[in-house]
């Protein structure tokens, strides 16, 4: 019996490893000499088809392998990518892009305007059903909405190839952040001949993935590893220092990744947990921080009959919670910052170099337990109650989500003098219950889709599908609508500021923190960019320098 098992085991082992292509892990010193970087992608990318989805992980790989008309420079500013120029008409409703003559696909074919037209028609094509087709609505491309709703054929999209190197895009109304949208992955070019050739296997069969960016796909073992290598066909190849980027294993567990980093298995790893921060500090590693761009908040259910339909109670929470304590003691990861409203400070202001937060600051005194108590007392007196009824905080079920929910459970029960329960449910259950209005308070968050305050500001408009709070304010809706059409950027910021004030003072949402992250890099690896918009992490400007590579 045992002999048989052992034989079977050996046989199976041989079989498993015969199929495993990745057996030649290079040491960190070898990688340094060869200009290679290893990191852990954490998961299988949901889609390697640029037009299909827009998650960060797929976007990281695609952003290295493809390039849009525009892209982000090292400092995070929008710059020319595949397009050598972008010209806007007087009314800012027509954009003309000139595509670089030396822009090439990885197989040597030139990138032409038609590749963009094809990709964008595909984006809005109902038959293709891209989850991110709505971004064409945000870009206000003529007829995008009508095509998605099947009222017009996709050929009617307002994007036209004048000739191979000229692309003309018509917009319904001016869009202040149109240039940054053109750097977004769903607007990357796609090759019709490859989609036709591979059909259902397109973007799934590695051979079908041919990009126009600085790196080309070298190998992809599903759910196991991925490797991209420098593409000499890229128009700006001379500026690219790294020869290869590889995820030798796709591991989510941060501690495991940290262990792998410490033993030289990978060159970059996140340390976004208090325990890991401590370990990294003990190991005397240099911890870098970044902002993810997301805002976390408690969303109140303000529908009639719900406890938090009362504004005073919402304000009691808004003013009572201690954001600094929460960020520093409970989350305990550098990079996070307290947040007081839904529009993050980093959003662009009306002039280059001026942020939204600088131009339209909004904050108030929090950790005001006495003030909160007064608000609660006023409520109790009005309703002739002795004590607030019990309520529930709906949260996710990860250990982190539970920890945060428990903190607020404790904090709110003290502030409001009520019994607070926590309901921890799986991710999609939380989303669905939120959508169905089955909650008192839900721990929620929002991440930006594009580089403009609007991606947060319109979240609580009455018509927004994602406004699950039941909150509706006509003045707020009108201000957001005005901001959408306003072309004077300074005026636009003021409209956002006014709307944001209304929203924050009525508090259907209570912002907690602007999420961040912390990571460590192998000694000598420099120029890795962490980004809110565009590719994250971005290795396009990275290189190994003379610094010591340990292990």
């Amino acid at each position, binding site marked *: 019996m045992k002999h048989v098992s052992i034989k079977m085991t050996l046989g199976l082992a041989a079989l498993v490893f015969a199929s495993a292509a990745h057996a030649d892990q290079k040491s960190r010193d070898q990688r340094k000499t060869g200009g290679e970087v290893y990191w852990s992608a954490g998961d299988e990318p949901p*889609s390697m088809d640029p037009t*299909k989805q827009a998650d960060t992980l797929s976007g990281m790989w695609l952003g290295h392998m493809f390039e849009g008309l525009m892209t982000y420079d090292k400092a995070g500013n929008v710059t020319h990518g595949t397009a050598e120029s972008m010209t806007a008409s007087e009314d800012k409703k027509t954009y003309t892009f000139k595509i670089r003559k030396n822009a090439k696909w990885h197989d040597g074919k030139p990138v032409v305007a038609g590749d963009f037209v094809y990709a964008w028609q595909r984006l809005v094509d109902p038959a293709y059903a891209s989850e991110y087709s*709505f971004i064409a609505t945000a870009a206000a491309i003529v007829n995008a909405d009508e095509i*998605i709703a099947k009222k017009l054929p996709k050929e009617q999209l307002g994007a036209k190839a004048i000739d191979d190197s000229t692309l003309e895009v018509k917009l319904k109304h001016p869009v202040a952040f149109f240039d940054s949208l053109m750097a977004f992955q769903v607007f990357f070019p796609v090759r019709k001949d490859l989609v036709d050739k591979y059909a259902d296997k397109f973007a*799934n069969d590695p051979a079908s993935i041919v990009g126009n960016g600085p790196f080309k796909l070298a190998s992809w073992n599903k759910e*196991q590893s991925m490797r991209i290598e420098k593409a000499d066909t890229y128009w700006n190849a001379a500026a690219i220092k790294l020869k290869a980027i590889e995820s030798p294993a796709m591991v989510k567990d941060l501690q*495991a990744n940290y262990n792998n980093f410490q033993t030289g298995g990978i060159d970059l790893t996140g340390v976004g947990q208090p325990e890991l921060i401590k370990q990294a500090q003990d190991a005397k590693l240099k911890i870098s921080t970044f902002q993810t761009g997301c805002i976390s908040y408690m969303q109140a259910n303000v529908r009639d009959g719900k406890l938090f339909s009362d504004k005073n109670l919402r304000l009691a929470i808004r003013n009572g919670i201690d954001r600094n304590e929460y960020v520093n003691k409970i989350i305990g990861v550098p990079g996070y910052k307290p947040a007081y409203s839904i529009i993050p400070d980093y959003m662009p202001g009306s002039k280059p170099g001026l942020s939204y937060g600088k131009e339209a600051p909004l904050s108030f005194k929090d950790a005001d337990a006495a003030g909160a108590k007064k608000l609660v007392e006023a409520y109790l007196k009005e309703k002739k109650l002795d004590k607030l009824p019990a309520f529930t905080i709906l949260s996710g079920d990860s250990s982190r989500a539970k920890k945060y929910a428990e903190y607020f459970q404790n904090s709110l029960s003290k502030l409001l003098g009520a019994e607070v329960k926590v309901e921890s449910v799986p991710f999609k*259950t939380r989303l*669905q219950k939120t959508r169905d209005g089955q909650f008192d308070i839900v721990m929620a968050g929002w991440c930006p889709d594009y580089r403009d305050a609007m991606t947060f500001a319109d979240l609580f408009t009455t018509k927004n*599908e994602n406004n699950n709070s039941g909150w509706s304010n006509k003045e707020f809706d009108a201000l957001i609508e005005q901001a959408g059409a306003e072309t004077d950027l300074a005026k636009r910021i003021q409209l956002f500021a006014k709307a944001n004030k209304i929203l924050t003072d009525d508090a259907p949402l209570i912002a907690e923190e602007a999420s961040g992250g912390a990571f460590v890099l192998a000694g000598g690896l420099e120029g890795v960019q962490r980004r809110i918009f565009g590719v994250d992490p971005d290795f396009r400007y990275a290189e190994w320098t003379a610094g010591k590579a340990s292990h």
Partner: protein
Amino acid sequence: MKAFFSSGLVRFLGGRLLLSIVTLLALASLTFVFMRAVPGDPLTRTKEIPAAVRQNLEEKYGLTKPMWQQYLIQMDRMFLKGDFGESFRTVGRSVNAMIEEQFPRSAILGIVALVVGTTVGLLLGIFAALYRNSLIDRTAMVLCVVGIAIPSAVIAPVIQYFFAVFPLTNMGANPDFWLRPVGWGQTRDIILPSLTLSLGIIAVMTRYMRSQMVDVSFAEYVRTAKAKGVSTLRLVVRHEIRNAILPVISLLGPIFVGAVSGSLVVEGVFGVPGLGVAFINSINNNDYNVLMGLTVFYGGFFILVNLLTDVLYGVIDPRIRVA
């Protein structure tokens, strides 16, 4: 042996096979119902997909069809065409390919863990029983309780640290040959995850084998054998172990299935691209096709292993051979 492979066995297998199919169908149907009773669907995202876009997606995935049609389509595809469909999360990834590529990795860990865990566990159990109430016995029993009580989520990082990270960073172990903390693709990568998985098996096996050995040692046939002057070695091997091991064999099936399918934590920590992680992700993502496909696959696997265990049981113990 000859008598064993008789028409009785054929009848037994036939009956069991039929029962297996019914069980699998019931499992698939229940999964279908429960899966759809869970709030949300595969298209539920943090950001609600606009209505027109969602409509297009639902049509593409056939989610607009009446529930009974969706049920029939999925059953037909799975059981008659052998096609589990495609993942909703990972575009273009077929569930069949997931099973083909990822299951062998989980399976090899499970098999190695089973072989190691059973061998060590049985030996420990036998010695603990033979020297019962000695220091060896007590130590083994304490370790067993610890082994059963501590979840692999705790053990795995500890093993990873002490067997890989510490030797590599503090003892100057050669990273070209030493065990890697994370990785898959080399034979050495099997060792740590299998070791982690085997600890629980060792604990269960030791305890069970010990108590069986103790029971058997009081049996009358053992006393008879002793009275007849059978040598100690022969007594232990032929009479005690052979009888004590029988119920333990019946544990092998469930333990094997557990080791193979329950390794998701271990897979996650050691970076093994197995099926365990995929299974958990499918639950979190409401990924209907993956969830259904893997449930049916694991269900079928469990049924098959149990069937084999029963047959094996018959080989070893003539008393329970089916007539």
